[in-house]
């Protein structure tokens, strides 16, 4: 199924340039016409010469805005408290505030620039401090992007966030809240779906925005936790995922890679209202059995209203919702007394952001995530039902800094309700940030 889908995209990709070339039959200009063109050009040049003034005085001429590389450094630092002593129990995201008191989980060096006339390059290197105040380094993203393919095609290759839904591919400083939605942590692990691989994209030549994307990845490790991930080590030194001892599955065929297709479209409802719709999926094997596979499906909606007289971007109102569902084929683990079964999980988050006055936004997010079909107590706890509600308020001192206060209240099936309050401060140095819609 998935191979067939990607295959037909490739075939289409090959066909389009051919069709395009066939259409471009240039009508040969007659010699007379050519001479007339040349005459006009000569006249233009003569005119330019006659009009040319002495060279402008040594006034500062326009300086190019960018050098070989744009460099920026962005820091997100947190201060806060959680009702549970181990804040990580309430905040599973890797860039979330991680402990009571102060924490710094995202100091990001971002580099980008044109590699040559055909490619652009991007890199994001993240530094973060852990509970023992050590510094972890993470090569979050490092990829190239094609700039000169024909027929609306584009290729991204390297290490990058999979374009699944809206938030997964966004960097923490563009999020509307200090933490990642629970459902994304459940499906993709603490740090989002991020892999080495390649992504093909085709912008359809339609009057409305319509983009087809296919990501192909290794699908291994904690950044693809629903796929070929060995899991956490238990007390006996056995690595387990949802109670099952895992085994490392090498890539036997291209079918063992992780495939992430996406389709996205957008409509301008009015001059000041825009709607973006998307549907995504991820298919690949997991490590709980010889032929166990995982499928994740997602749908996302983003709506934005911005005043036609917006000043500095305010006032505005946005609504963003993502739904994700997963079928995880868990292999049998007879030693652990677990049968082969399919685990179903689903969840969603929905959030609004209201920028009511210049520099200020109010946000509200509601979340729900749940799982069923598990025989193991441990697996059930990892996949229990959780709900969270989070209001926040943000003040942007400029485009390059912000202060955010957020409150979380969380309901958990197998644990006490939890509360947390976080104050986050962001500052950015260097290149001017330009964000996608």
């Amino acid at each position, binding site marked *: 199924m998935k191979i*067939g889908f990607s295959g*037909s995209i490739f*075939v*289409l990709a090959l*066909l389009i340039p051919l*069709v395009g070339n066939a*259409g471009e039959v240039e009508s040969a*200009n007659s010699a007379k016409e050519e001479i007339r*063109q040349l005459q*006009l*050009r000569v006249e*233009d040049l003569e005119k330019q010469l006659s009009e040319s003034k002495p060279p402008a005085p040594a*006034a*500062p*001429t*326009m*300086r*190019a*805005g960018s050098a070989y590389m744009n460099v920026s450094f962005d820091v997100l630092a947190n201060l806060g408290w959680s009702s549970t002593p181990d804040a990580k129990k309430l905040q599973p995201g890797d860039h979330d505030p991680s402990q009571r008191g102060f924490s710094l989980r995202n100091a990001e060096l971002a580099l980008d620039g*044109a590699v040559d*006339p055909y490619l*652009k390059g991007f890199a994001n290197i993240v530094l973060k401090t852990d509970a023992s105040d050590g510094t972890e380094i993470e090569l979050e993203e490092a990829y190239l*992007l094609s*700039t*000169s*393919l*024909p027929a*609306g095609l*584009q290729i991204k290759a390297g290490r990058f966030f999979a374009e699944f839904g809206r938030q997964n591919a966004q960097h923490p400083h563009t999020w509307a809240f200090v933490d990642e939605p629970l459902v994304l942590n459940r499906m993709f692990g603490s740090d989002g779906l991020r892999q080495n691989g390649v992504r093909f994209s085709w*912008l359809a*030549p*339609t*009057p*409305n*925005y319509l983009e087809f994307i296919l990501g192909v990845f290794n699908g291994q490790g904690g950044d693809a936790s629903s796929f070929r991930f060995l899991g956490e080590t238990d007390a006996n030194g056995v690595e387990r995922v949802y109670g099952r001892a895992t085994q490392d599955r090498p890539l036997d065929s291209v079918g063992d890679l992780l495939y992430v297709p996406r389709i996205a*479209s*957008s*409509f*301008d409802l009015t*001059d000041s209202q*825009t709607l*973006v719709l998307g549907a995504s999926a991820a298919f690949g094997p997991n490590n709980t059995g010889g032929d166990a596979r995982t499928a994740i499906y997602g749908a996302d909606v983003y709506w*934005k209203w*911005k005043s*036609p*007289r*917006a*000043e*500095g*971007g305010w006032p505005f109102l946005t609504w963003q919702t993502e739904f994700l569902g997963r079928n995880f084929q868990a292999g049998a683990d007879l030693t652990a007394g677990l049968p082969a079964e399919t685990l179903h999980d689903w969840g969603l988050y929905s959030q609004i952001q209201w920028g009511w006055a*210049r*520099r200020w936004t109010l946000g509200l997010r509601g979340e729900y995530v749940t799982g069923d079909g598990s025989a193991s107590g441990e697996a059930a706890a990892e996949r229990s039902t959780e709900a969270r509600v989070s209001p926040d308020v943000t003040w942007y001192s*400029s*485009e390059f800094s912000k202060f955010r206060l957020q409150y979380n209240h969380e309901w958990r099936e197998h644990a006490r309700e939890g509360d947390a309050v976080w104050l986050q401060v962001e500052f950015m140095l260097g290149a*001017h*940030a*330009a*964000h*996608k*819609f």
Partner: protein
Amino acid sequence: MKIKTIILKTALALAVFLGTSASGLAKLNVVATTSDLGSIAHEIGGDLIQVTVLAKPMEDVHFVDPKPSYVVKLAHADVLLEGGAELEIGWLPPLLEGARNQKLGAGQPGRVGCAEGLSLLEVPALLDRSQGDLHAAGNPHFLIDPVNARHAAKRIYSAFSEVDPAHRAGYRERLETFTRRLDEKLPAWQKALAPFSGRRVVAFHNSWPYFAQRFGLKIDLFLEPKPGIPPTPAHLAEVIDRMKAEKIGVIIVEPFQNRKTAETVANRTGAVLIDVTQYPGGIKGTEGGYIELMDYLVNTLANALSGKTR
């Protein structure tokens, strides 16, 4: 077998689709980031081109949302006209990345940065954001000087005739008409504002140095304490004191700027508050195009400065 027929049918449908869109390319498809560039493009292209403007004329051009529909417009464009000098830096790069249009690649004839070749004012000696949101290349609001508009028109003409050489003669005729009109109008505009030479006008944001220089005004006192930083009470008090001391009688405000703040200052100083714009269509009466916009600005300012508006 079935898959083959499906692929063949899809390819056929695509061929028909691309074929029809190719026949629609008789007109040069021009995208302009702002409506002033769009209006000059129309002066030069006339019926030979089809112009799409991205930023709405009332909108703050530094903060345009890079909507997906703009990606599509750029993907279909033959020519992109941008101000350049970082005016569109916050939103154009991701749009171009998404549009993946080879014709608009850096250095292509279809990519027209209208600031190129101009000596911009206020190029900062030091890039220091404690001084507000500065533009490394200089002040990007250059097109509001008619002499710079003349320069932009020439650049646009060169681009059109390079991308669409078959219509060079038509473009040149229209360029000459537009340039002649500008050359006729400029002395009249200068004459209308000449009686107020050296007078100071208060603006919300530092977007008028080119206009001030051309017409002998001083527009160097701003409601914003620093570029991009919203007015503070302390700074406004300073501005009010200075306006009273120097008897400054006119404040100008653009459609997206906070009119209430400007009204407060006007009330406290007895100054006249007038609505202005740099973009055709930003204010009623400026929809006609660049020349109508300049007419509006010069007349409104002359009236306000002579006390007729009061």
